[in-house]
Each structure stands twice: as C-alpha cells, then as structure tokens.
C-alpha cells in the first residue's frame, strides 16, 4: 500500500487514539495523588514516539518491559500491571 492509502485506512483511528491518550494524561493529572511507576513508564514510552526510528511499537513495548534476566523468587500475584515497577517495588 502507498503511504496515502495507509493514512486513508488508519489515520482517523490513530487520531482518535492520540486524543484519547491526551485526555487520559489530563485526567490523571487532574486527580489528586502522588507519582506512580506506571505513569513514569508511560512518559518514558511516549518519548519513543518522537524519535526517528522505524520500530516505535517495539521501542514502546521495551520501555514498559522488565529488563532483568533472573527468575523472581516467587509469583506473588497472577496479574500484570503493564509497566515494570523497578527493583524493590
């Protein structure tokens, strides 16, 4: 497909999602409370969008990922939070 055709197919959907992201960030900042590791990771991931590389999806996923390599001692919960809390959390 040409770039124009890709835009015709996906631009409106991407625009909608981008505005939704902006509204989400506004909503978080309007609410009372402290910083959260998820928002820290979110902001780091956002930086990847502005970089010139052509693997932004991969870079965003890496920004949210646990970079360590050793198995953890015990699975305390079953669910995932979407962002790595970092050592000690």
């Amino acid at each position, binding site marked *: 497909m040409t770039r124009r055709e890709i835009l015709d197919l996906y631009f409106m959907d991407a625009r909608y999602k981008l505005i939704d992201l902006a509204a989400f960030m506004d909503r978080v900042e309007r609410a009372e409370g402290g910083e959260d590791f998820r928002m820290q990771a979110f902001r780091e991931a956002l930086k990847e969008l502005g970089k010139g590389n052509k693997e932004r999806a*991969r870079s965003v996923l*890496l920004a*949210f990922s*646990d970079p360590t390599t050793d198995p*953890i001692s015990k699975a305390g919960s079953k669910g995932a939070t979407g962002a790595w809390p970092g050592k000690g959390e």
Partner: protein
Amino acid sequence: MVSRVTDDYSAMMAAGCAAVCEPAFWAGFDRSSAHGFYDYFRQLTEHEPKRAAKFGLPHFCWLCLNPKEAEDLKLAAEVLAIIPEFLDRPTVLGIGEIGLNKNSRNEMKVLEQHVDLAVKHGQLMLVHTPHLEDKLKGTRLIVDLLKGNRNVKPERVIIDHVEEHTVKLVLDAGMWAGMTLYPESKCSPARAIDMVEMYGNERIWMNSACDWGVSDPLAVPKTALEMRRRGHSAETIDKLIYRNPAVFLGQCPKFKLPANAEI
C-alpha cells in the same frame, strides 16, 4: 471452548473456520486439587469435541497445568502425573499452553517438567509467554530453556503471544511464532499484519483469544478481512490463517481436517 458459549462455535463455522484448537489454561480461579484438572481434561477431550461437532467443527486440544497455577509444585507434580493418561486420546495435539506467567523459579521448574514430559512422549508443544511487562523477560527465559534442551526440536514448538519486541527472538530460534489477537489491551489485527509485513510469513500464525476476558473467537477471520483491505493476496492470507497452522499441527498425526476444509 470451555469459556465460551455454544453460539461461538456456530459463528466460527459460519465464518469459515476449519478447526478449533483449545489449549488447557487457567479457569479464572485456582483449582483446589489435581482432581479438578482430571475433570477439566475430560471436558477438553470428551465434552468439547462433541459440543463443537454439533456444528461440524473439528475440535482439538492441548493439555498441561497452566503457568498461573505452577507456583504450587506439589499440585504441579500431581497434575503432570495424570496427563499421560490422556495423551493418546484422539483429539489431543500435545502439551500446552505451558510457559511462564510471572517468571518465577517454580514456574521455570514446572515448565522444565512439562518440556521433559513432551519430549518423553514425542508431543508438540504450545508455549504461553507472559503478558505485558513480563513478556520480554519471560520469552527470553523460555527460549533459552528450550534451546538448552538438546532433545527439543524447535520446529515442533510454537511460542504464543509474540509481539513486536519478541517475535524475532522466537523466529531466530527456529521455533514457530503465534500472534494472539485481542480486541483490546494486547496484539490487534493491524499490528499482527504489521509484524507479518516486517518479519515474513514463515513459521508464523495468528490465533483468536477465546478466554474469560474480553476476547473474540472471530478475530482471525476479521484479521483476514483486514489483510484483504491492506492489499494482501488471497494466497498470502490463506497461508497465514490456514496452511501455516495446518503444517505445524500436521506434525501431530492425529490432526486431520475435513476434506472440504480447504477454501
């Protein structure tokens, strides 16, 4: 599909699905004993094939103790002990979906035991990778464990739930890569097609998440429609959604498709 209503089988048949392959997975709660798994394996090998057959849909399954219940080593040992009893059943394709959830030491031990069981009985393996922030690390641990076992044939393993940061890792290891499609939160049809366009369509397939969460049994046929909108040929689409799975699953002699399944 134990987590889905009968209408889903009907809809899959109407959408042109040729077969359904259901992995053993978490029930949404921890089972209290190995007896619960025994009954579950009976459900997967006896009841679900009959339920799907009412709509002409061949039903196959995979058996294991899923990674979410792998922290309890005693339970895992008891469940692994009953699996061989079911492996000769006519619709069992192999061991799965094994793998990791939180990347814990006990999960690794149970994964290793499942791999040994699969090797011992000559079974295909379907491997679950953790979701979200745990996926990269979990995929690395899984691939390293499998590569470290000289008895594992990589072409007989599919690593599921790959995303943009893990797909190359799996393909480079010579294993099959599965992209699980979700309506929200994880891999979308558009992203799955992106990955095919970037990494090719060899040793890769897509599957529809059909679990207790928000999921869609028709995700694969809907992705086929999206591939058509993106200009992919009928031949390319057929390879990805039909011939590739048939090649991988065909390594199990019990996997047979109806003669009229070819589109």
